[in-house]
C-alpha cells in the first residue's frame, strides 16, 4: 500500500483506538463466541460425521452427496419456497395497507397499533399452539364456525392439501404487526408537503399512494422484504408445533429448518444437519444477493 495515504498514527490516536476497542469488546466477544465461532464450526462439521457428543470424524463431501440424493431435502426445500413465495408478498402488502391506514388521522390509532403488534411480541410456540386448537378437526373454532354456516368441516392440519396454507396464515398473522411498525416509521418520514402538492395537482388518494408513498417508502419496503425472506426461509416453530409426525401432512409441511432439527436432535446426525444448514445459508445468500442487485432498479434513496 502507498505510504502517502497511510499516515503513521500518533500516540494519541492509538490510545483512542484502544479505548474504542475496549468499549466494543463485550459485544464483539459475544458475536465472536456465539455467532462467528459456531458459524465456522458448523461449516467444519458439515464435512464430518459428528455424533451426539460432538466427536467429529472427517468424511469429506459425504454429507453433501447424501444431501443431494435425499428426497426429503428437496421436498422440504420446495415446501419452504412455497411458504416464502406466498407469505412474504401477502404479509408485506397487508402490512403496507394497514400501516397506510394507521398513518391517517383516525381515532384510537395507538390501540390499533398495539393490537396489530401484539402477535409479534407473543412467543411463537404459544401462538402456534392456539392456532393448532383453532384448526383442530374435532373441536376447533374454525370448524365450529363453518358448521354454523352450513359448510363442511375439514381436518385442516391433517390434510396435505390445506396444512401448509394453514401454517402460512399463522405466519402472516404473526409477522404483519412487526412489518407494519417498520413501514409506519418509514411513512412518517415522508413529508406532508408532497401530498399537499399532489392534491393541488388533482391526484386522488390511490394515485398519491402509488406515486408518492411507494417510491418514497421503497428503502423501508426493501428492508422489510429482505428480513421477511430470511425469516421465511427459517420458519420452524409453527411447523414443529402444529404438525406432528403422525399427521398425513407431515411430509408436505416439513421445512428445511425442521429437517435440520430432526437430523441434529432427533437422530443425532449433527454433521448431516450441519450440511443442511449450510444449504439454507447458501440459498438465503443467493437470494439476498439477487435482491441487492435488483434493488437498484426500484429502490429510491433520495
Amino acid at each position, binding site marked *: 500500500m502507498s505510504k502517502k495515504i497511510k499516515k503513521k498514527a500518533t500516540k494519541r490516536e492509538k490510545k483512542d483506538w484502544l479505548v474504542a476497542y475496549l468499549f466494543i469488546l463485550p459485544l464483539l466477544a459475544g458475536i465472536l463466541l456465539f455467532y462467528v465461532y459456531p458459524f465456522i464450526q458448523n461449516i467444519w462439521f458439515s464435512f464430518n460425521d459428528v455424533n451426539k457428543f460432538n466427536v467429529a470424524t472427517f468424511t469429506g463431501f459425504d454429507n453433501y452427496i447424501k444431501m443431494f440424493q435425499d428426497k426429503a431435502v428437496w421436498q422440504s426445500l420446495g415446501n419452504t419456497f412455497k411458504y416464502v413465495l406466498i407469505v412474504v408478498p401477502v404479509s408485506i402488502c397487508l402490512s403496507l395497507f394497514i400501516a397506510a391506514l394507521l398513518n391517517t388521522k383516525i381515532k384510537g390509532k395507538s390501540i390499533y397499533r398495539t393490537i396489530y403488534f401484539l402477535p409479534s411480541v407473543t412467543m411463537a410456540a404459544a401462538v402456534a399452539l392456539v392456532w393448532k386448537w383453532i384448526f383442530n378437526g*374435532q373441536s376447533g373454532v374454525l370448524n365450529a364456525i363453518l358448521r354454523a354456516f352450513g359448510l363442511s368441516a375439514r381436518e385442516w392440519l391433517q390434510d396435505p392439501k390445506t396444512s401448509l396454507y394453514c401454517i402460512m396464515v399463522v405466519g402472516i398473522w404473526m409477522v404483519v404487526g412487526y412489518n407494519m411498525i417498520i413501514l409506519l416509521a418509514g411513512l412518517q418520514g415522508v413529508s406532508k408537503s408532497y401530498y399537499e402538492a399532489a392534491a393541488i395537482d388533482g391526484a386522488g388518494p390511490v394515485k398519491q399512494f402509488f406515486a408518492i408513498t411507494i417510491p418514497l417508502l421503497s428503502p423501508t419496503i426493501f428492508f422489510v422484504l429482505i428480513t421477511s425472506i430470511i425469516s421465511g426461509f427459517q420458519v420452524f416453530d409453527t411447523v414443529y408445533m402444529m404438525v406432528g409426525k403422525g399427521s398425513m401432512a407431515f411430509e408436505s409441511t416439513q421445512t428445511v429448518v425442521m429437517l435440520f432439527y430432526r437430523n441434529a436432535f432427533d437422530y443425532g446426525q449433527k454433521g448431516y444437519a450441519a450440511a443442511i444448514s449450510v444449504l439454507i445459508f447458501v440459498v438465503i445468500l443467493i437470494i439476498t444477493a439477487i435482491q441487492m442487485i435488483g434493488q437498484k432498479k426500484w429502490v429510491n434513496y433520495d
Partner: protein
Amino acid sequence: MKKRGLKIVALLMVSVMTVGMMAGCGSKKEEKSDGGKTTITLGMWDVKQSPFYDEAIAAYEAEHPDVNIEVQITPYKGGEYWTKLEASAAGGTAPDVFWINVLHAESYFDGGILKDLSDVAEEVALEENYPEALVEAYNFSDQQIGLPKDFDTNALWYNKDIFDKAGVEYPTDDWTYEDLVATATELKEAGLEEGVYPFVCPVDFQTWYYPTVFANGGWILNDDKTETGYADPKTQEGIQCWIDMIDQGLSPSSSVLAETSADTLFGAGQTAMVLAGSYMTPEYLTNDAINKSIDLVEFPEFNGEEPNVINGLGYAVFEGTKHEKEAKEFVAWLMSEEAMKLQGEAGTVISARNDAQHFFADSNKEINLAAYTNHADKAVPLPVCKVAAELYDLELSKLKLAYAGEESLEEVCKELKISADELLGTME
C-alpha cells in the same frame, strides 16, 4: 486528572462487563463445598417421580452426612432431556448420575460417556435380583453401563361410566382380542354419545402393535440388526388387527388421533377403552374428570398369547464425573431393596427389582394395577438399535398411510422393509 479518572472508570466498567459475560458463558458446575460435602447431581425428566426422590434423598443424606444430592429435572418432551444431556456430556458437565432408557443406551455407550457399572452390578447382585431382559438391555460388550430402575408394560383401561350407560359388561383379565372387538361393537351398537368412541387405535408401536406383532410370532428386528421383519405376514397381522378396528368404526380415524392423543381422549371421557403404559397411571389417577370411574385389565390375549412389550429406565453414571466413588455408592443404594421399595410404594412406576415389583400394584388396591405385572415375565423388550429413533419415524411415516386407508398394509410394509433395511445398513 479528571479525564484520567474517567478513563479508569470506563476501563473498569468494560472489564467488569466482559468478565460478567465470560462467567455467564462457561456454565461450569460449581462444587458446593459447604462443610466439605460432596455434591452429586442426579439428572431425570419426570416430575411425577420427584416425591419419591425427595423422600429417598432425605433418607440417603441422613445416612451419608458428607454427601449432598441435587436433582436436575429437564422435561422429556421434544427431546429436551437428551439434547441437554448430550450437550453437557460433550462439555464435560453432565450430571454425575442420570436416567437413561433402552433407546439411547447403545449410542451413549458408543459415545463413551457412560461408566462401566459392573462392580455396582455385582454389589447389588443384579442378575439375581433383576429381570434378565432389563439387565441385558443395558449390557454391551460385557459392560453393564446402566442399571434398570423401573419398567413399564401396557394394559387396557376402561371408563365404567361409559360402560354403565351403554349397559355393557366390563372387560376382564382373561379377555382376548376377539372379546375386545365384540365388546367395542356392542358399545357402538348401544349408541354412545356424540364424539365418544368404544376404543382408540393410534399409530403407536410400543403400546398397540408391537405387543400384538410379537404375540403373533411376528418380528421387527433380527438378532444381528441387519434386517427388518415388516414383510412377514405374521408381523402384518399384528398391525392389521388395529387397522381393522378403525375400518369397523370402533376407533376414531387416524387423522383425529394424529391431532388428539389417545390419552387425551380417554382423559376427556371420549373413549370407553384405551391401551396405556404403566407410566400413564399417575396421570389418569389425578385426572378429576375420570379418576372415579376408571379401572384396568390385562392386555387382551392375541393368538393365544399374553402380548406385551417391556421397556424401562435405568441409572447411568457419567464417565466424566469427578466423584465416581460417591456416585456409584449412591446408585448402588438406589438399587437396594430399601430404595426400590420406596420407589414402588410411591405408585408412579413399577420398581424393576423382582422382590419390589408388587409394591406398585399394592400402592392402590382400589384398581387392578396388577394387570401390569401379572405377565411381565412374558413381555418382550422393545426392539432397539443405534438408528432406532430414525427407524421408528420411518415406520410411522409409512404405517400412517395404511392406517388412513390410503394404501394397503401389505404394500406399505413392502416399501417400509426396503427403506428400513437400507437404514440399518448405514450402521457401521
